[in-house]
């Protein structure tokens, strides 16, 4: 089927490097630290039907979810997606994830024929809503979380039309930064479109389109091969989200998996209905978490594209925690609940391929947002970051300390960037020793991040998990230590809840201690 294996590889890798060049352009042109330093953004290339063809090595929760964004644009805008246009969206019920993630989709034409799409998703530091950073600890309705954007064309003839994003620019606390970052997203798509056209001109349109199909078939075949030794095996697991920030606790997520000759059935029947608090996880993010696990466990060396998950049959009940409907709040679902989806899917695969499964990693992203007015410039600021923790150990492998796991892979904000851009001082950024679970192989340690706020009347929001139920050890390994959120002020220490929004005064210090990873295997001193 693959006519010339070298050309196939060359085109495949050209597409991947085009996606990577998009990511580089995006962060190089960006203005907010969350994008230019933390790289909270992802880029990918799609065929004309919106199927993923190639992606950059960015953020798993973005990457698996973007195809639904592209398809929402195709469905809603269809023929209005002309050469030179780009469409924007963040609607969690129409292919988006949570509101700060803005996705910009660009159709690519050659001789007036649609040949594919390039798209990127970037997490903006503020899109309006009840609290700065648009990641409120306690929202009860999507409209408290910011401006909702259903697919709409915002770029025509390669120019960003400000009146098409007026609601966003009026809703956000930082419009100047938003415009800069939106332009950077346009830059990424410009680079991607130009690269894709170059590749098609170099190898002929027909050959590249054939490779689009060939790549998906190739990845699908290799995934099926990787699953085939386990046909007929099943696994099931249930875990909980410890709180939704709205008074509900221990909210169940259940999964059952069967490996079949056509791939795998994954059912989330038995999972909680959607809840009042903001941990509802949009469908695209749920699917993204399942794709992530199957690629990580079975897809080693397989090019990532739609073919990798075309053999997965995933059932997610409507109006459930993992497939919510309007107006359920979702801001923590994409970042926190998606991590738990990974935990349960991995745990149920442990019954099928035990030696390939690690213990629980920290199971949270420790989302921290701080907003207020910067006394140095008298301008509003919003700062957002996520904090790494301990990774789970595996058979023969110690868990890594102080690292992001599973659905995110954002970098830290360099302290020197943080303090230059915002009125804060970092007191401590260190490993939280002995927080990884003991085992034959220990889990990784968490992180301590302590930030002093040098402005009055700031609003701090935290969205976190694993503050009550610890990351589990596996095969006799001990659990990792739970995380803790604290505020220190005038010598007093206040414990903050896992989901929280608080107002702070000058000199208040936020101290986040992130969870350790679970250990794997019985610790040596306890084995007999």
């Amino acid at each position, binding site marked *: 089927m693959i006519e010339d294996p070298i050309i196939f590889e060359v085109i495949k890798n050209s597409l991947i490097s085009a996606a990577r060049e998009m990511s580089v352009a995006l962060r190089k*042109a960006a203005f907010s630290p969350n994008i230019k330093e933390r790289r909270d953004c992802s880029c990918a290339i799609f065929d004309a039907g919106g199927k993923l063809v190639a992606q950059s090595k960015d953020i798993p929760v973005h990457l698996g979810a973007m195809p639904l964004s592209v398809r929402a644009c195709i469905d809603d805008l269809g023929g209005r997606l002309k050469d030179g246009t780009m469409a924007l969206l963040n609607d969690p019920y129409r292919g988006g994830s949570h509101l700060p993630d803005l996705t910009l989709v660009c159709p690519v034409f050659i001789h007036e024929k649609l040949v594919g799409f390039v798209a990127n998703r970037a997490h903006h530091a503020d899109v309006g809503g009840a609290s700065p950073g648009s990641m409120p600890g306690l929202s009860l309705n999507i409209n408290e979380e910011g401006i909702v954007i259903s697919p709409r064309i915002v770029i025509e003839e390669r120019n960003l039309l400000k009146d098409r994003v007026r609601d966003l620019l009026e809703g956000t606390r930082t419009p100047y930064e938003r415009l800069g970052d939106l*332009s950077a997203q346009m830059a990424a798509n410009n680079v991607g479109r130009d690269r894709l056209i170059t590749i098609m001109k170099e190898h002929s349109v027909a050959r590249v389109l054939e490779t689009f199909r060939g790549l998906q078939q190739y990845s699908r075949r290799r995934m099926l091969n990787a699953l085939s030794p386990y046909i007929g095996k099943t696994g099931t697991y249930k875990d909980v989200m410890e709180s939704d920030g709205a008074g509900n606790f221990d909210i169940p997520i259940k999964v059952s998996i069967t490996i079949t000759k056509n791939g795998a059935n994954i059912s989330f029947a038995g999972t909680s209905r959607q809840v009042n608090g903001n941990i509802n996880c949009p469908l695209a993010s749920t699917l993204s978490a399942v794709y992530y696990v199957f690629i990580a466990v079975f897809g080693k060396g397989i090019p990532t594209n739609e073919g990798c998950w075309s053999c997965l049959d995933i059932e997610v009940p409507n109006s459930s925690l993992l497939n919510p409907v309007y107006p359920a709040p979702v801001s923590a679902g994409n970042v926190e609940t998606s991590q738990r989806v990974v935990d349960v899917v991995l745990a149920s695969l442990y019954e099928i391929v035990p030696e390939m499964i690690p213990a629980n990693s920290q199971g949270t992203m420790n989302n921290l947002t701080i907003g207020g007015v910067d006394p140095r410039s008298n301008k509003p600021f919003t700062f957002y970051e996520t904090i790494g923790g301990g990774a789970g150990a595996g058979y023969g492998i110690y868990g*890594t300390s*102080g690292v992001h796991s599973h659905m995110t892979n954002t970098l*830290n904000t360099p302290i020197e960037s943080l303090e230059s851009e915002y009125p804060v001082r970092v007191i401590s950024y*260190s490993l939280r020793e002995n927080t990884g679970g003991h085992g034959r192989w220990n889990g990784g340690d968490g992180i301590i991040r302590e930030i002093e706020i040098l402005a009055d009347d700031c609003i701090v929001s935290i969205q976190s998990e694993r503050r009550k139920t610890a990351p589990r050890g596996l095969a006799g390994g001990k659990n990792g230590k739970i995380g803790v959120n604290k505020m220190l002020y005038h010598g007093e220490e206040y414990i903050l809840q896992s989901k929280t929004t608080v107002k702070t005064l000058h000199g208040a210090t936020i101290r986040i201690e992130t969870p350790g990873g679970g250990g794997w295997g019985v610790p040596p001193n306890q084995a007999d």
Partner: protein
Amino acid sequence: MRVLGIDVGGTFTDLILVDTNTGEETIHKLATTPSQQEKSVIQGIEELLNRISMSPSEIDIIIHGTTVATNAMIERKGARVCLVTTRGIEDVLEIGRQNREEIYDLFARRPGPLVARQNRVGVDERINWRGNVVVPLETREVSRVIDSLKKMNPEAVAISLLFSFMNPKHEKQLAKGIRGSLRSYVAVSYEVLPEYREFERTSTTVLEAYLGPVILGYLERLDQSLTKIAPAARLNVMQSNGGTVRCSNISGRTIGLAISGLAGGVIGGWETARQNDIKKALTLDMGGTSCDISALHGGIKVRPDNEIAGFPLRFPSVDVKTIGAGGGSIAWIDDAEILHVGPQSAGAVPGPVSYGLGGTEPTVTDANLVMGRLSPGYFAGGSIALDDDLAKRAIHNIGKRLGLSKRNTALGIIKISTANMVQAIREITIEKGMDPREFTLIPFGGAGPTQAVDIAESLGIGQILIPRYPGITSAMGLVHADLRVDMMRSVMLKATENDQRLLLSTFESLIKDAQQALIEQGADEKNIHIQQEVDMRYQGQSHEIPIDIPPHITGYPEVTRNLFETEHKNRFGYLLKDREIEWVTARVVALATDSRANAEAPAIFEFTESDEREVIMPDGEVIPVQIYRRVSIPIDRQMKGPLIIEQVDTTTWVGQGWSLKRTRSDVLWLRRGGH
């Protein structure tokens, strides 16, 4: 002027002396003394000068490429380092940027930090983003730090404090105190990498501390010995970016030598490509220990940063990939009875089994000997006698364990070694979306031309170019490279009339320093050529676009802003009209071009009798093959493979289906099919 290039590899030390007045070249090669590289360097100089009866005092400039730093990193044999850093961020070195390299890797690991936690000392001090002191560094705190360091007794100390690039006061205070009380090598972040982002700056400073004592120790020993034998010569060292540095100026900048030994090969390979009008070249430098591969498209690519043995290094370096595949690479069998080749090498001592110096494990060279590609009597021009029987026995022994004939074992070793190099080439071409078939393979190093056809066959490459002196192409690159100095300084200015004066004065002082450095290296002032660059961005971005400043302009703000906007539009597709534009870093490149790169002397034809030897072909068949000395190949006449071409520094294998042509400028063209 007489310029001496010295390239020290893991196995051989190569020297080339060029007289720039006459164009005369003398080459010499000897075994490296791995534990004391300076020994073979001095011995090589003495041997070379003896051969041509020249007095050492007649050498003007020495340019040296060294692998001391690379080896220290790979073998993790750098100095014992303590890190002194702002209290509270002692773990930054270990956490890095908190991300993982591969997003789907459930078991992502990082290399262990070069400084263990108990050797990191936190200091009570604080400087803020503007460079103002928030928590002063007290004298007694400096004493406390010194006391704890004394207990640890490190060979080197790295100092990296927050915001030292804005205000180095506290770093200077600590450095002064530590230098006054300890004998350790001290690396200070504001000198090593005065840029923001604490992890990258700290990590690079730690690397400087880790490598400094090793490299300086070596260069000091070398310089002392040289002063005795060649007092007039100035010793310059090749840096990773292709620039040169005077030996006495290296302290504090040793990380610049991280891949010193590789830059010469890339320059030498590209020089060959350029002289033969090749735009796309794959240079393959295969010596005794390793193989360095670079894909060049229109010129040598310098990356702004690099990674060495898994550690990020913010120092510009030529883009080159190294794998453990050389003539000395050892063939071995693992516990699952699978045959492997390398990355371990038999080096120069004991060397391949056929050297007869006590080696027992067969190497790639032994396999080539058994296959008949190498001559027992003319290896390295006959200076190293190869024992055919020893090689056969060793290959037979390893084949017996695999149930393979001697013939198939030798073929297998060559196939595996070829596959390792092919994989590396794929990584730098196909995996970056380039088709290797559009490139010309330029193999050199002592072992490159022997396996070039196998590699080309495997990748579908149709054209191979073999330089005049393949065995010493790296050393040739050293003497043909321009002396080059790069200088930079962060300026952080607005691109306006107001700030123009500060930018200009920065350039003025950088140019002065760069010129001075080149003159100290031995350059003639009138040959110095200056290029100016400034990194620019919109205020609020963190990444800059480098802008070349055209010579002799007035009105820097307008000219550079226009160039920046054009480039921003070019790269990203748009401009931002309402934003301020900044000058971030001023850069100066000073080049001393003189006429060292003389036109090559024409090829000389000298008739010698051809010979014949039985050679094992890739399909296992044994057939007689004609052997020629390189000088006896007629100029511009096509000859058909299989053929073997021998010369002092290498042996070229021309496989079946390939043809050969020697040109007037004495390069060998190998082409699949006919010419």
